[in-house]
């Protein structure tokens, strides 16, 4: 496998798409949408936080100890703190889902457009389908990274601007965020994020290769919904997961590769209060890594056959025969 050509493809996809209108709108527009959602989220979470403290799910004393370490705080700030505690994973989950959504659409459209214009014929006389697919995934991972960095920067800026307006000094907010996002948690976030991203990107590339040009142009994109729906699930179940982060539901969702990244982000956000058993983090990561590996291999196979078929979308039984080749 020639790394250099994979990088060439990645560079091409990155440079060509970073200038595209679609990238600019999603990168700038989506934060606005997230902002809207997260203000709703913040409102919901402040309610659920009240519920949570009523059930004394969170160790108030422990929280207060953390607060004292980070500076002088009145007890009303605990509400704020709980809100942040829930806002952080929601924001990350949103970022993850939106950036995946962007990639799914871009990878699908990119692959289909190459099929439609038959450029793919030219490409495959130079590189293997595997190199083409890995290059695409890498290129879009780079785009996703840029996007996430932009969004995090925007989120931080908003925190620092609006926090003081609400009467919370900026240094205190930073201290609070760091309390809930210590480095080891941040590292795990990045890890889950990246793995989840690779998993989704591999599936999208394979999907794109199996989709007929006409089907995509006529808007029959059922396949992309198939990938995205399960990713959204943990977000809909946010309250249940946060309230019982070590329950059966949370555990199951942590083991399914589609839902694992978002679920684990939520569970890790309340790590300080209710630690996630190490074996669960380990198992979740192991399953996710294996699934990424498997998805890459299978997607590569489907991609290499499907990419040269121009007509109708492939059926699942056809894909099955390709896999067994």
């Amino acid at each position, binding site marked *: 496998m020639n790394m250099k050509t994979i990088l*060439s493809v990645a560079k091409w996809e990155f440079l060509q798409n970073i200038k595209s209108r679609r990238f600019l709108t999603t990168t700038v527009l989506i934060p606005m949408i997230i902002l809207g959602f997260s203000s709703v989220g913040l409102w919901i979470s402040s309610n659920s936080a009240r519920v949570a403290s009523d059930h004394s799910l969170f160790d108030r004393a422990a929280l207060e100890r953390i607060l004292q370490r980070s500076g002088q705080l009145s007890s009303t700030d605990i509400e704020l703190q709980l809100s942040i505690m829930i806002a952080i994973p929601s924001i990350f989950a949103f970022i993850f889902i939106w950036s995946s959504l962007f990639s799914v659409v871009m990878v699908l459209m990119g692959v289909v457009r190459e099929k439609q*214009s*038959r*450029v793919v*014929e*030219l*490409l*495959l*006389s*130079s590189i293997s389908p595997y190199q083409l697919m890995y290059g695409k995934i890498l290129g879009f991972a780079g785009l996703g990274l840029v996007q996430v960095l932009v969004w995090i920067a925007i989120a931080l800026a908003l925190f620092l601007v609006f926090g003081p307006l609400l009467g919370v000094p900026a240094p205190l907010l930073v201290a609070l965020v760091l309390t809930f996002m210590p480095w080891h948690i941040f590292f795990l976030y990045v890890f889950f994020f990246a793995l989840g991203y690779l998993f989704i990107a591999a599936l999208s590339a394979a999907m794109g290769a199996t989709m007929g040009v006409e089907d995509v142009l006529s808007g029959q994109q059922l396949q992309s919904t198939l990938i995205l729906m399960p990713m959204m699930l943990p977000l809909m179940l946010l309250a249940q997961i946060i309230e019982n982060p070590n329950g059966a539901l949370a555990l199951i969702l942590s083991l399914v590769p589609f839902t694992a990244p978002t679920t684990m982000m939520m569970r890790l956000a309340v790590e300080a209060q209710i630690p996630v058993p190490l074996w669960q983090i380990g198992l979740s990561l192991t399953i996710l890594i294996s699934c990424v590996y498997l998805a890459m291999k299978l997607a590569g196979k489907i991609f290499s056959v499907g990419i040269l078929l121009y007509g109708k979308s492939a059926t699942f039984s056809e894909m099955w025969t390709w896999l067994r080749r």
Partner: protein
Amino acid sequence: MSEILRVTEVHKQFDGTRAVNGISFSVSPGEVFGLLGPNGAGKTTLIRMILGIFQPDQGSVNFSFALNGHLPKDKVGYLPEERGLYEDRKISDTLLYLASLKQVAPERARERALRWLERMELTKYFERRVRELSKGMQQKIQFIASVLHEPPFVVLDEPFSGLDPVNQDLFRDLILELKAKGTTVLLSSHQMNFVEDLCDRILLVNRGQAIVYGTLKEIKKTHGHDHVYLEFKGDGRFLQSDNRIKALQLKETHAQFVLAPGVSVSDFLKSLSSPLEIEQISIEKSPLHEIFVNLVKSTGAPSA
């Protein structure tokens, strides 16, 4: 004779349809090799197997410059029949990208691309987007993409289709220039006049199988007929009873006919001179066009 490519008994099947069914041939370095056949005969599948885009179900494809049985893809160039480029990308970006996939350094690719564009009189389009170009211009860009990395072996699939006569001639000249530089060219085309002009040897395929394989001369000798045009004084009616003559068109002062297979031209001429006063005679081998049509008809319509 040394070989740059040897294809041995390759087979490829798609969902029960035999696209290529046991084809063998070899290509010598520096020649222009013609791959002919009707639409759906299996040419594109064969080309894709040669270029490693498809793996043959059976048989093998060997390049003399392969490393451990692996084809270094930067040593081959390809102008696909199904043409397309990134519509909304710049020519410069596209050419440099495609060159980078063939391991050409950007500065060198740029320099070569500009030289080729100059040759094609397209220099001013270097920073334009592909969709601003006419079909013919896009075809030129694709030709450049297929040779920018200066490969020793180039596959041109229907390079002339969709071009006006002026550009067809340009492409013919380009192929001759490639040949002069020592590049081996595998040319697939339906333009028989260009195939006759350019190709040293030919493989004709139909229904996934090789029908004819050899030099142009050999093929014309074995599969062509002698077309005779005669102008004369005297009574030409005896020609009607000569069983060595086929497809006779007899007029007052001239006749046109085909010699039956196996009839020697010189023997025929000797027998002709006595009863007739010949004013003018021309004998030509069948054009490749006719041989192609006859052979394809006699071997059946393509299965796909």
